[in-house]
């Protein structure tokens, strides 16, 4: 285990130091006093763990493919951009565009997320990306979603805070979103249909939530003791009739 004090360290130096340690076979690195450094853990393929204390900057873990990254705090925008594998655990909230075009791996967020989370998330072959969010989410949640799973729990929300914004799943053409609570028709994209959960859905959901709840010390039974809804695309080809030939 290695420890780096990131206070005032420019991101390039910080990332070089991380990569150097990993190249030497380091399996776990603790980064203290991180604030605003971008690109931490980008493109990592090593099976290693980064533990970040502080507020890392944008584009954390972009193009990631295997590492485990834990943030003990809030994250910013563009986390896990085009992630292919690995796990990201965020103990606070994050900004916009989390998991853009994510193709594999898992992201657990304890708190809230911003706009366009899971945009264009896709599943491919046996890869099924997963994002679980403890709090609420902004607009365009799962926009353009083409595969994978997103679970939105809406726990510990501020007063008056909606569980999710508008245009949920706009353009969605694959994957499934589970939301712990109700979503109004005006909140969803026209390509999306809402239903309740059947037995298989519940089993799947429990499978996903067990680890998550353990990670953040949520009571699984309590989390499950609520009405969930399921959002799916109406069609894999939502715009099949859009064009005149």
């Amino acid at each position, binding site marked *: 285990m290695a420890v780096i004090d990131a206070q005032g360290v420019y991101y390039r130096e910080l990332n070089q130091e991380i990569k150097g340690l990993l190249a030497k076979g380091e399996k776990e690195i603790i980064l203290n006093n991180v604030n605003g450094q971008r690109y931490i853990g980008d493109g990592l393929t090593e099976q290693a763990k980064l533990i970040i204390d502080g507020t890392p900057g944008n584009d954390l873990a972009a193009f990631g493919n295997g590492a485990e990254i834990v943030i003990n705090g809030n994250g910013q925008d563009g986390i896990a951009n085009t992630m292919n594998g690995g796990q990201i655990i965020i103990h606070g909230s994050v900004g916009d565009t989390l998991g853009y075009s994510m193709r594999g791996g898992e992201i657990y967020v304890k708190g809230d997320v911003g706009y366009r989370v899971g945009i264009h998330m896709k599943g491919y072959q046996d890869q099924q990306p997963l994002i679980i969010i403890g709090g609420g989410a902004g607009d*365009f949640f799962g*926009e*353009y979603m083409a595969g994978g799973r997103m679970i939105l729990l809406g726990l510990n929300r501020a007063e008056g805070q909606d569980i999710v914004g508008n*245009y949920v799943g*706009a*353009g969605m053409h694959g994957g499934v979103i589970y939301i712990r609570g109700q979503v109004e028709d005006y909140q969803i*994209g026209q390509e999306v249909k809402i239903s309740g959960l059947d037995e298989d859905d519940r089993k799947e959901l429990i499978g996903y939530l067990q680890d998550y709840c353990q990670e953040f010390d949520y009571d699984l039974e309590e989390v499950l003791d609520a009405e969930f809804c399921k959002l799916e695309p109406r069609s894999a080809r*939502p*715009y099949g009739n*859009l064009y*005149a030939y």
Partner: protein
Amino acid sequence: MGLDYNIPEFIIERDQDRCIDCQVCQHQCANQVHAYDQDLEKMVAQDIDCVNCHRCVTLCPTNALIIRENPSEYKKNKNWTGNMIENIQKQAATGGILLTGMGNPTAKKIYWDHILLNASQVTNPSIDPLREPMELKTFLGRKPDQIEFDDNGELKDLPPQLELDIPIMFGAMSFGSISINACKSLAKAASDLGLMYNTGEGGLHQDLYQYGQRTIVQVASGRFGVHNEYLNAGAAVEIKVGQGAKPGIGGHLPGEKVGAEVSKTRMIPKGSDALSPAPHHDIYSIEDLRQLIYALKEATDYKKPVSVKIAAVHNVAAIASGIASAGADIIAIDGYRGGTGAAPTMIRDNVGIPVELALAAVDDRLRQEGLRKNVSLVVSGSIRNSADIVKAVALGADAVYIASAALISLGCHMCQKCYTGKCNWGIATQRPELVKRLNPEVGAQRVKNLITGWSHEIKEILGGMGINALESLRGNRLMLRGIDLTEKELEILGIKHAGK
């Protein structure tokens, strides 16, 4: 007859291998071009009667028909073209005024085609209109300079506004010039889509009152069918001063088109000619226009915006400015390529100016005078596609009228023979057997499809510009660049040349 001109304009070619003698062409041709010849045991055609409306070509189930221009040629002469010669022959035979239908077909510059649109790259994102909101809603009507509240903090009511979900309206075409089913198609489509249908000067047929909230009722010089109920049936009133296809002249609906329904709707005797004077005889000056505008406002209790429609002529900017200060809520400008049911050919092809230049000039003038923010501007005169609309809005229009495009969506193939009353598509006709060819449900759906397609395209274009509400395009000439235009043209259009 001897010298009269009787060479067919078109030649009909029938692929006998494909013709199955089903006689659909025969049943569909109001000009009686096609017939089954019992002796020859096959279908034959009278080419001379063909107007090339494509009804037979379209309905032939085996695609056995081709209509070509008659390949017979005149001696080459860039000045005395065949068209010129034929016109003279026609007039030599009849002594009449050359008459034509639909818009100007001559090869004059189309400015829309010399204007290119912008798109976002990197510095701001284009917006995906399919998934993200994209707003085309438009309000037409007089707007105050600023929002106002009364002493109690209550919002003061705005002057009446027309709310359009898409900045497209169906331009004025009277019942009489077009069939009731064409009217119904347009009115229903307008209603379903949240647009406006314009009665033209033909009055409002009783079956169309149900679409009143989506209707602009027109008051033209002939005042056909204009009465209090009519004025209050629509959502707005339009004073028609001029029409792009025939600025400065009146109209003439021949008595044979004034059947029972037209008669009832226009409130004139059956079979009598419906003559529209060239001017309104209560408007000989701008203050008279103001008088009529306010007379209409009084009659409609100030609940309807009043539009004034003029043809784009040389001093259009000054006229528009006068109209704005005369109290009009909406100014509609119809360019010289605008359509018509019937117009003297020489006028249609030679009077007026292009709507693109007129629009740019009017928008500029109204802005200079600080009036543009108060009054709405609608343009028309051959809006052919969604890109034309985007360009018009960026040049400064609030909305457009489309008419020819709407008729084409109903089936019109631009044969330009509207004035014969034998429209095979059931559009420009009053003959019951032809009128029924346009099922208004089908017609409305086709128009709706067109507008839906266009609105998707407009949204795509807006999204590409990084704009998600139409008001951010309105007058936004930075989104336009010109090609193949002179400095003067660019100056009038208020746009830069591409590359600048």
